[in-house]
């Protein structure tokens, strides 16, 4: 089985390489197709024309686009993502400083979403047609419908301003100060995790309902197994497709963190991305998007591997 898994993973990783290469070309090209001269954005409307020309030359913006790409990708392979021409900092260093923050935020959203979704999905499925099910379904609909930025502002005004229970803006690393770190992550975590919680709740509910219809559970019951244990068996099987959704949602959480970081002033990758877009900081923008893409691809590989373990058919154990 291990050799089959290894072969499977190697195959998936090999597929990831052309995906990343293609993504790097697309990112590089698309950013440069957007109108707006970075030298003008950097220096402002009343910049001296001679200075604008000097900055363009310094940034290599006068070179043909393929020359710029070859220079960039050559350096990127060596781990050098370039130097921001707005802040003059190494992009790889900037990303390394911001990445743990975004991962902590994503993890907070992930934990919040599962903490809501698993009990809500179970209660909803086991109380089909009753009030609890209605509440679960309504939550599911609301969760996917409410935009992150709106929920964030509402939570922030309610719990940060009016009740003054939690901090409104900023970030403290949970590694440096666990208590403060968690306080700073509660509201962003809820904001980020709600949409995923809604999706997983609905998915778990429908999969569990489907599972509970199966005849094998009647056989188990006839053997005298308690209802709770029967539910345990059904839930385990219902989780197989849900795990895939959870994995995919983790990737989407990374995307959602961009908005949440902006609302809660969290210095993560999302803020780095938005600042880079605003200032046409091509070098930083490319680096950040490349890292996001790499994470998304990596999450997919992990999900595939998890599915490989959970699904006997894939392992050839039919």
């Amino acid at each position, binding site marked *: 089985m291990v050799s089959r898994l290894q072969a499977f993973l190697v195959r998936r990783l090999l597929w990831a390489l052309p995906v990343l290469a293609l993504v790097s070309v697309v990112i590089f090209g698309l950013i440069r197709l957007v109108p707006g001269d970075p030298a003008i954005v950097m220096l402002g*409307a*009343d910049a001296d024309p001679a200075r604008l020309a000097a900055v363009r030359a310094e940034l290599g913006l006068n070179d043909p686009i393929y020359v710029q790409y070859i220079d960039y990708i050559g350096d990127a392979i060596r781990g050098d993502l370039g130097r921001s021409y707005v802040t003059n900092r190494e992009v790889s260093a900037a990303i390394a400083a911001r990445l743990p923050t975004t991962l902590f935020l994503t993890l907070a959203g992930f934990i919040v979403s599962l903490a809501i979704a698993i009990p809500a999905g179970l209660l909803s499925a086991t109380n089909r047609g009753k009030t609890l099910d209605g509440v679960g379904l309504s939550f599911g609909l609301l969760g996917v419908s409410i935009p992150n930025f709106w929920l964030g502002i509402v939570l922030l005004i309610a719990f940060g301003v009016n009740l003054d229970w939690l901090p409104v803006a*900023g970030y403290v690393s949970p590694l440096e100060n666990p208590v403060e770190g968690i306080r700073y992550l509660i509201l962003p975590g809820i904001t980020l995790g709600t949409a995923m919680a809604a999706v997983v709740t609905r998915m778990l509910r429908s999969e569990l309902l489907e599972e509970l219809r199966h005849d094998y559970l009647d056989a188990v019951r006839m053997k005298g197994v308690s209802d709770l244990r029967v539910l345990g068996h059904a839930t385990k099987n219902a989780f197989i497709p849900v795990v895939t959704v959870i994995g995919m949602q983790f990737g989407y959480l990374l995307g959602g963190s961009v908005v949440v970081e902006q609302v809660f*002033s969290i210095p993560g990758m999302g803020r780095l991305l938005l600042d880079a877009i605003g200032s046409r900081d091509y070098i930083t923008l490319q680096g950040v998007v490349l890292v996001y893409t790499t994470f998304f691809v990596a999450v997919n590989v992990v999900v595939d591997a998890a599915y490989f373990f959970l699904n006997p058919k894939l392992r050839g154990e039919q």
Partner: protein
Amino acid sequence: MQGEDSSTDRRTFLSAVGGAAATALAGCTGDQGTPTSDGTSSPIPASDTDVSTPEGGPQSGGTLRVGFESELTGLDPHTTESVVSWVVNFNICETLITFGDGAPAGRLATDWEIGDDGRTYTFTLAEDARFHPPVDRELVAEDVVYSFERMNQDGAMGADLSAVESVAATGEYEVTFSLAETFAPFFNFLGRVPWVVVPEEAVEAQGGDLGDFQEPVGSGPFQFEAYEPGNKLTLTAFEDYREDGVPLLDAVEITPIPDADSRVAALRGGDVDMVRGVGGSDADTLRNDDRTKLSRQRGTQWGQLHINCSEEPWDDPAVRRAVAHVIDRRSIVEAAVSGYGQAAWQPYAEDSIWNYDLGDSRRTRDVERAQQILEDAGNPLEGETLTIKTNSRYALMETTADLLVANLGEAGIDAETETLEWGTQLEDFVTGNFGAMAFSVPFKIDPDRHYYGFIHPDGSQFNHYGEDQPDAQRMYDLLARGRSETDQEARVEIYSEFEKLVNKNCPWISVARADGITGLGSNVYGIQPWLLPYTRYWTMWKGE
């Protein structure tokens, strides 16, 4: 250095230049709350800044936590290009002059003389200015020479310093600038944040190149302590600062909070003590909350309809004049900044010496007159649809375009907005790819900086006001004289005539001056709005 007899008396110079600064500063704090009959003023009182001092007077100590509207764009003082970075550097490093109490004032310079020919500027430096640790030594004239050479290497400062032929240390505490030709705005420009003095050894220790000096060392009241990009910048009080009791605060912590709603919430929730960039719509919330208050600086942004005078149909002066009569400036101020601003026909307020009293010739809203102007010109807009470029990032520009299109519709003129991403609009502005666009620029201390680049062929030509346009040659001449004339009264006359021609020919159409609003916690005191948008944290303190 020029002798006493051949130099302009410092006091005379101060009184002339200071008049401009004083009147502009008065605009920052004076009560402009009474609406005038033509609606030029907002009903909201301008003197919102709380200058009260609670019992016990100013207190020392404490940390001021400040929320900025955007992330810093680096900290090397000679290369940064954003207001937020300038605010930080303004508190760490020092320029030769500044503007205090309404007049040009020394900062590092204690005295100065300007040669009769207007080409030699000699500054005497404070002898007790010291650089922060780890440099920890006196600041001397050689540091000024080094700093100007560094900031302008390869002409990096562009036209602003191109007139400077040499900078020389003419004594341990004396530095002399020689200009190749007279350039009147030069003196005021010496107050610009990027023209600060830094020590060579600290720059070299951080790499030496322009852009490398990201942990700035200066001689200001605060010293750089730590910076975690995106999260927090900490400044601490410089204990050996040459003025006793300055600064009052122990530290300033700056956190970027880019979302406007979050920024206001952070202030109301007590997470920060002060926030920059409060929108007009949030200002009333802060005014009415017991936990917060406002500081309001008048006219920090000048909003206008920028026009490319070489592009049809905007090349026709009649079209521009008609549009100037159609636009409802008062409504734009109300809608864009909730009344925190003034309808404007010029960049400088009525109480500035740079303002020219246009009287009845001012192109106020008069739709019938606009229609008459077009009719007299043979209806050049018949069958035309005017396009007004704008962006959705800045409320003043977006609202100006939206309301102008509505105003033009009321006058029977077809028009539409084209909303662009900000970077795209900036590029279109600089490259001239527009007929008309809603635009705004920050307050400029010298009128040359507002006008020259827009009109003069040697400037950046953003308006493309060609020689075929009415009074073009005269306007070019006036702008050139504004640079070469060093007598301030004569300069005022020059720019008065220039404004008169702007009103006549409308190379652009002034719309509004928007105020800069800062939110403060109710226990924060000592903020002093002044001429420029850089907060001087060293005057501030926190009460109980």
